[in-house]
């Protein structure tokens, strides 16, 4: 993957991460105010967010070192 492609991927992942984190916070708030905490739902959402976070970190590392980690 070229540097331009990596930067585009980073932009895409950052946007996705921000949206998912926003949704996780909103969902937790919704559950908290209705006194209906579903921890397994929150954990599943957190796991999805963590996958995006890890991929984003990998892309950022590749951009920093100049080495494509996916190859």
């Amino acid at each position, binding site marked *: 993957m070229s540097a331009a492609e990596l930067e585009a991927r980073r932009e895409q992942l950052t*946007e996705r991460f*921000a*949206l998912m984190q*926003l*949704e996780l916070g*909103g*969902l937790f708030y*919704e*559950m908290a105010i*209705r006194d*209906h905490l*579903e921890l397994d*739902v*929150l954990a*599943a*959402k957190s796991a999805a967010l963590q996958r995006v976070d890890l991929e984003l970190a990998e892309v950022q590392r590749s951009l920093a070192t100049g080495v494509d980690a996916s190859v």
Partner: protein
Amino acid sequence: MTETEQEITQREQCEQCAAPLAADQRYCVNCGARRSEANDPAASYFSEASAARARVAAATRARAAANRKRPAQLRIPAALLAVIVAASAAVGFGLGSSSGGSTTTTVKSAVTSTKPAANTTSTRHGSTTKSTSAATGGNYSNQEKNDNSVVSEP
């Protein structure tokens, strides 16, 4: 149950798990699905910020593209200027080499033609000498000598 009551009931159910939802509920607390039609200030704020950022990025890209085009536009006048300079240099060199010989010959001929004239005027006396020296813008001392000679002759 009337049609409107059925519509409200259908609308206020989760699209994924069909759990009942309150009117102001943004997320389903049962499955965690987000309600698309719910009023979410955070989501609208971030979507507006994202749109503004996209506009700024597009403007930056357009500016960068315009800056990249500018040197390309300057290339043609620069090339033209180079051609004009080269052509004028070549023309100047050609003229210099062709007219250089004739210039020297004219200078030589002028020198050779003026020397005998100077000799003839110096040998003559009186008014002739005056007129030639005046015409050639001659020497002041020569004029004085000639004047003296004119006066002493009678």
